[in-house]
């Protein structure tokens, strides 16, 4: 595959507003669904307990069926490092996330899957969540390269740090190949460490 197949310059799709702060990865996918040796079945369990307990949960709403841009609050994806969380969201159909802030490991896991997570202001997020609620059929564009989100005729600022942005836009987020390019420099670095070389 050429790097262009991996490039995530922008993602366009219908929106799914999910209000609330500090939504942790246990909430996104409870631990009992982690007893799997593949990620294949994760999608159907996204927010399973929250959906069962609350029929009004946005992931239950027919209005948001087929949505691919998730709009969340502060500290989304905090807690456990389980990649099962972004895997579940990805397999549910989510391709990009816009929020106030993200759990750091979750953010990194999303990059590894090519899912951009952009940070917007609280006021803009509230506006976007409401606007999507009023017009769920209207597409949202998450522009990773320009660091903005477009909805209807409005453009809001949404940032992503340089490193991940370069990886996403450049299509180098699938990191194994990139890391392997360092070749013998890996062993050379290890060989200089006293605990590897021997004290």
């Amino acid at each position, binding site marked *: 595959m050429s790097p262009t197949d991996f490039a995530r310059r922008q993602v366009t799709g219908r929106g799914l507003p999910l209000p*609330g702060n500090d939504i942790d990865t246990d909430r996104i996918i409870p*631990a009992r669904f982690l007893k799997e040796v593949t990620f294949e079945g994760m999608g159907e369990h996204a927010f399973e307990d929250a959906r069962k307990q609350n029929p009004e949960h946005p992931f239950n709403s027919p209005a948001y069926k087929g949505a691919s841009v998730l709009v969340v609050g502060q500290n989304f994806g905090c807690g456990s*490092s389980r990649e099962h969380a972004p895997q579940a969201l990805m397999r549910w159909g989510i391709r990009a996330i816009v929020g106030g802030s993200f759990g750091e490991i979750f953010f990194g*896991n999303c990059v590894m899957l090519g899912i951009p997570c952009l940070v917007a202001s609280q006021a803009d997020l509230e506006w976007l969540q409401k606007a999507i609620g009023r017009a769920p059929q209207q597409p949202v564009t998450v522009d990773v390269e320009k660091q903005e989100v477009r909805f209807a005729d409005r453009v809001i600022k949404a940032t992503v740090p340089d490193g991940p942005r370069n990886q996403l836009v450049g299509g180098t987020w699938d990191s194994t190949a*990139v890391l392997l390019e360092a070749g013998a420099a890996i062993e050379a670095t290890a060989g200089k460490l006293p605990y590897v070389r021997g004290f």
Partner: protein
Amino acid sequence: MARTLLDKVWEAHTVRTLPSGQTQLLIGLHLIHEVTTPQAFQMLRDGKLKVRMPERTFGTLDHIIPTADQTRPYADPMAEEMAVHMYRNTKDFGLPLFDMSTGRQGIVHVIGPELGLTQPGMTIACGDSHTSTHGAVGAIAFGIGTTQVRDVLATQCLAMAKPKLRQVRVEGALAKGVYAKDVILAIIGKLGVKGGVGYAYEYAGRVIEHMTMEERLTVCNMSIEGGARCGYVNPDATTIEYLRGRPYAPAGAAFDKAAAWWKSMATEPGVAFDDVARLDGGAIEPVVTWGINPGMSVGVSQKIPSPDAQPEPERPTFREALAHMGFEAGQPIKGARIDVAFVGSCTNGRLSDLRAAAEVAKKGKVAKHVRALIVPGSQQVAKAAEAEGLHEIFQAAGFQWRKAGCSMCLGMNDDKLQGREMSASSSNRNFIGRQGSPTGRTLLMSPAMVAAAAITGAVADVREILR
């Protein structure tokens, strides 16, 4: 210019700067467990990749294993399948596995330091967010996802951005009945659950300097609950004495050379941190969480706060927390009735934690309506505790004495809350559903406070019991 431990470790492990601007960082120690790795090994197979440095990865079984009957095959076929994969993957790729037969099995963050695998100046990664624990010995240690586990296996490296550094100083001295767990809960209460995002935490100050290694492990363990992906304590005499004689630590003359290098990695005086936070250790009382994230906590003598007193954006989460927990704003936390007591986890499943709980357990019997579990963090912890007779103290008081594993910290085995049960837990997360029941409720506290709650049947002030 004066440099921090983070600066020195980062520099020593930098392979190169990547086109994205991130660092290609060499990982000195990679720890793996059964839940977050099967997919990574499959990715290796699919990509026809080998493990780059098999001597730098070590595995254990902890998350799914039963803590009552451990006969194979496990009663839960899904748990058995995960174990089978772990055996097969480590065998196929030539990696050591600390299973039950080795006598060294246990929670990954308990056995790393215990075996001396975890050493100062290292970079350490594991597919588990509580990898921050290992920072207690002066390592830069952080949790990663499964695709990153693949990267470490295949390349021994990660693409990472260097975090900013906040020094968290805890000054003064702790009162009796106040433990390392209370210190970290107080830190998270002050700085917030996302206060550490983008930062590494360097814990310092008199309270931290006077802590034993096990106490430092408890503090660093919950860095991630404060949003910081890694947290560390500078290596000092406590660190060096802790490592002496451990199976994977250097021995003889090599140990002295190692100790000199370890000390040389510590942060130098006069460093400018990106931020400094200060807490008065003397002002900390036993802490209990009342809500659905680890920042929602109060001192045991305090009342549950009102959502109306919070900044506007925080109020919905506060209301949700009160509704889930069945608490009223203004209610004292002391006296909240519990159904389950759990002492264990990578936060508080070490020997000193069990000793602290046993000291309290001696003072009474588990309340009739309470189910109480003691789950040692590793086989070695269990063995040491049994050698001191701690298991007998617990059993005489009505606690169940289990085998090592993660157990009710996340409820992936049979140790789960039922329905809306309220649990007093020495673990690290009170997220909704965390302890195995979607409607279960968790109160986080120190092991001594858990034991106090177990014998009282409700949240109690351990200081009154120890008096």
